[in-house]
């Protein structure tokens, strides 16, 4: 059963076509990598899927709801972590959690319970009252991800979540992504770290607004006879 479905999705800004008639679907519980060079259109496509941006044409369905017509229901079913840092730096750790949980309509008792679980899980018990700006970058990213899935969304959209983070922290971050996927949360993630593409169940590679390839990392490597995803990416870009 597909939890994200996009059909002939196009987004133009004036004469520039950022997303050019893409069609794809993502299955429940899948970790779906959305790859592409800067400016290939992946962030634009993701913003359309989240309802942040209206498509010029085409339609998309997320968590069973039409994004254009049932935006409110879509919004309640998804989590989002923006490319820029998506927490409030001048709020404390618990205040950020409380704020976003409240925004998603969670009850006070539930919030209190889950806050404890999350802080314990992250090992942040001592940082409860720390201002977010005082946390190291890797910690902030982990917290931001925890907040994005705090309300147990069906899908979480991650826009280059590991930008600027060291490799060890990135690996830990991906462990969290796996844990979320095991709980049934579908993960839609954009990245330009090609080693991260190997961690995804399936990846799509965007070039100039089009999806040039969509398959499991293993099949893509075999098809293009490439040793790793980086080589896959290079060959696709050169071919177009």
């Amino acid at each position: 059963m597909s939890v994200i479905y996009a059909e002939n999705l196009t987004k133009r800004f004036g004469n520039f076509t950022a997303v050019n008639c893409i069609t794809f679907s993502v299955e429940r519980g899948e970790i779906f990598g959305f790859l592409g060079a800067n400016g290939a259109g992946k962030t634009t496509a993701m913003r359309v899927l989240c309802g942040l941006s209206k498509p010029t044409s085409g339609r998309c369905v997320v968590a069973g709801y039409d994004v254009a017509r049932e935006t409110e229901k879509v919004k309640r079913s998804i989590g989002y972590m923006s490319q820029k840092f998506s927490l409030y730096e001048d709020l404390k750790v618990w205040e950020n959690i409380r704020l976003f949980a409240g925004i998603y309509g969670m009850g006070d008792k539930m919030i209190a319970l889950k806050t404890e679980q999350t802080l314990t899980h992250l090992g942040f018990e001592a940082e409860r009252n720390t201002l977010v700006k005082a946390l190291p970058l890797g910690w902030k990213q982990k917290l931001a991800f925890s907040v994005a899935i705090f309300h147990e969304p069906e899908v979480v959209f991650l826009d280059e979540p590991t930008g600027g983070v060291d490799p060890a922290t990135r690996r830990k971050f991906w462990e969290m992504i796996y844990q979320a996927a095991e709980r049934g949360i579908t993960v839609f993630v954009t990245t330009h770290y090609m080693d991260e593409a190997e961690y995804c169940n399936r990846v799509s590679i965007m070039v100039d607004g089009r999806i040039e390839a969509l398959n499991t990392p293993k099949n893509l490597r075999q098809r293009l006879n490439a040793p790793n995803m980086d080589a896959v990416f290079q060959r696709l870009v050169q071919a177009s």
Partner: protein
Amino acid sequence: MATKNNRRLSIINYQLIVKEFRHIFRDTRSMLILLAMPVVQIILFGFAITNEVKNAQVAVFDPSKDAATTRLTERIHASRHFDVVWHLSSAAEAGEVFKEGRVNLVVVFSENFGENIWRTGEATVQLIADATDPNQAVTLTGYASSIIADYRQELLAERSIPIRVKAQVNMLYNPQLQGAYNFVPGVMGMILILICAMMTAISVVREKETGTMDVLLVSPVKPLALIFSKLVPYFALSVVNLITILLLSVYVLNVPVSGSLLGLTALSLLYIFVSLALGMLISTLVATQVAAMLASSMALMLPVMLLSGMMFPTENMPAILQWLSSIVPARWYIAGVKKLMIEGLPIASSLKEIAILSLMAVALMTASFRKLKNEH
């Protein structure tokens, strides 16, 4: 649970409002600036720029030259405010001495001044001031009028018949007399719009810059709840500022609220709302905090200073500037405050201002709401 959710997701989102207050209270420096700004401005305008004038040069035209005029002239000369330096031989000379810039005030006694007092109990003295500097002109005629009034009191004590000495005040060059009491309404108009509009715009744009705005827009929060939560804290802050300004002007500067305090408050709250809506609109038009700051100061500071009637009377402006000034909210607010606070007129007198500001509030709010909703 469902009803609870609905309540939480309605227009007033408590969590969001608390969050906005936290942003403000944690930025101590900005908050102090916001709260201290009106105090500094009022004190500066009130004390540093004082109206007191000493040893102003006076010319006298005295066609009757009797005991009464001589005594009055002596009185004026004896005052620490004036020096009588010139005796004119005709009333027409007044224009010349002004043009030469030799005097600040001309006193013209009527013919047969003393005789009129004894016979009819009524005599006229004309005070002509150079009102290119309006504050000084008002002050000088004020001093002279009180010297004349004192003299009249003395005569009254000597004689039993009622005596009237009429002082005709004639303001040259600037009949509008924009002056002393004006700055309180002006400062109110400026500070409120600056704080409300600039701070609201910056706080919205900051979220665009940091990316948190996207996170909020992806969430089920209603755009209206988002706007509302931004307005509440700055509204509260502006009310604190309003109270500060009024207390300072009443108790420190002795500019009383001579009209309806309720009306003044209502007008001010309306103006604060207009300013907040303006800030919202600015925030939808710019992308960075720097741009928001520049846009607010260019679009607000200059028009408020130059076109609101705070410094220059709008009635004397060319038609195009008058037209421009009528879209500056501060113009209508300042006009309303003058009526309600300084002139002591009833609320009904400023219905026009209230109507125009209400219209502006609705238009600005609708525009910024639409813009936020259709931004993407």
